[in-house]
């Protein structure tokens, strides 16, 4: 195992010797890879980015097909959003090169057999560790990218203020599981009910995206997400913010069915305006030991300009899910 890692490092070093380019990527702050049970969550606020030169810089790192896709979007706002989304993914992943610069433009992507986007390491010009997983989500006012090593990840963000065109319960009856409908029906206040629906929606989306087999394989009404009411205090003595939040669980309504995988969730409130759900797969060796919190590094970014580590201020509140917010380096 260690000789494999050594080989990998040697390969990277050899490869890096030839690269002495001062590219745009040199202003990307490099970060350490997420460890096990660790997820990184990067987000950008489109309204903060108004500089057209910067947007052009972002546009330039996109692939030809991504550029075409940008042009297909209707209207300036949607075009900007599309540029930022792809630029966020590319610049974020490019930061994880530890020994040399990786050009965000050099990354290639492909889709798995169910259509989930992933990095195509085979065609990446720079040799890299192939264990990086990512997932992207965007609303008009926030675009986010989650990153893990060795575990599938799904994320979803939604504006808290999001209004449904349909009645909340009618919507839930159409799409959610019986237990979830029951839970929502018991909430008397319509506004609280709507907020709860949005939370459930983001968690369910994050789950299906983490599973990565497409929505048709996991229709929303076939599984239940529960924001549990147990309060668990963190057992790990990492400094910084400890979440006393409840554990979030997912279950199939039919108890006799096996849950595929063992999934862990975190639900955040960002900037007071968005819900963000993160779902990663828990190590099988940890099952039965009680849940170990997900380590989470939260960063707000303007790629090529600045990064900000978010640590349990009003900017990010953990609503639910066992998690530890870590300091970024």
């Amino acid at each position, binding site marked *: 195992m260690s000789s494999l890692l050594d080989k990998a490092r040697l390969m990277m070093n050899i490869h890096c010797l030839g690269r002495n380019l001062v590219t745009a990527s040199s202003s990307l702050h490099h970060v350490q890879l997420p460890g096990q049970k660790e997820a990184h969550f990067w987000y950008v606020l489109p309204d903060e980015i108004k500089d057209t030169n910067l947007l052009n810089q972002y546009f330039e790192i996109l692939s030809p097909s991504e550029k075409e896709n940008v042009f*297909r*979007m*209707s*209207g300036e*706002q*949607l075009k900007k*959003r599309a540029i930022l989304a792809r630029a966020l993914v590319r610049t974020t992943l490019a930061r994880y090169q530890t020994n040399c610069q990786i050009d965000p433009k050099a990354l290639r992507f492909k889709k798995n057999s169910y259509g989930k986007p992933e990095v195509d390491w085979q065609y990446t010009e720079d040799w890299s560790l192939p264990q990086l997983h990512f997932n992207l989500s*965007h*609303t*008009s006012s926030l675009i986010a990218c989650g990153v893990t090593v060795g575990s599938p990840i799904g994320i979803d963000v*939604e504006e808290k203020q*999001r209004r*449904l*065109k*349909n009645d909340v319960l*009618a*919507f839930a009856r*159409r*799409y959610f599981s019986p237990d979830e409908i029951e839970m929502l029906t018991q909430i008397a206040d319509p506004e609280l009910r709507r907020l709860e629906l949005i939370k459930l*929606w983001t968690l369910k*989306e994050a789950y299906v995206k983490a599973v990565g087999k*497409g*929505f*048709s394989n996991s*229709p*929303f*009404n*076939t599984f239940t997400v529960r924001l549990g009411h147990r309060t668990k205090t963190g057992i790990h003595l990492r400094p910084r913010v400890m979440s006393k939040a409840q554990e979030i669980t997912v279950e199939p309504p039919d108890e006799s069915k096996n849950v595929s995988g063992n999934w862990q969730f975190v639900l955040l409130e960002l900037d007071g305006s968005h819900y963000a759900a993160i779902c990663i797969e828990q190590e099988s060796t940890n099952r039965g030991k009680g849940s170990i919190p997900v380590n989470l590094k939260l960063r707000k970014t303007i790629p090529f300009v600045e990064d900000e580590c978010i640590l349990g201020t009003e900017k990010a509140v953990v609503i639910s899910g066992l998690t530890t917010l870590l300091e970024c380096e």
Partner: protein
Amino acid sequence: MASFTATSISIISLAKPSLVPSARISSPNSVSLSIKGRRFPSITLQPTGRRFQVTCAILKHVLHGGCFAVHLWFMLMKFDITKQETVQKVCDIVKKQLALPEGSSVTGESKFAALGADSLDTVEIVMGLEEEFGISVEEESAQSITTVQEAADMIDKLLESKTD
């Protein structure tokens, strides 16, 4: 043979080309026919269910100076404007769901994502379509339609299987 488009219909006479008749569809429900300037009464079409057929009589017209008859054959014409209607209704529902400004261009080719729809919008659009057309969309399809045309095709298929 007759060919049909949304706004015009042309019928090729089987006889003298100078007697090519012209038929105009002035509205989805009526057809008017004229031959050499002579207008025949319009035929009003009664829709039966979601399709309607027009059967026109065979007309014989004897021209002065000649003993030839022009037989005009009108054949059964199946008007398939229902598919156009479906696409239009889908466009309207999409525009409403996404709160698109007046005058936004939404057509059959429009991709939901390109109009700014996310997955929540898409399922709300499906709910709107189910209500509008009285259909029920399978879970598997609900989140997998990506364009207006795909939605319209799915609706038409569901409607057809309903009437069969």
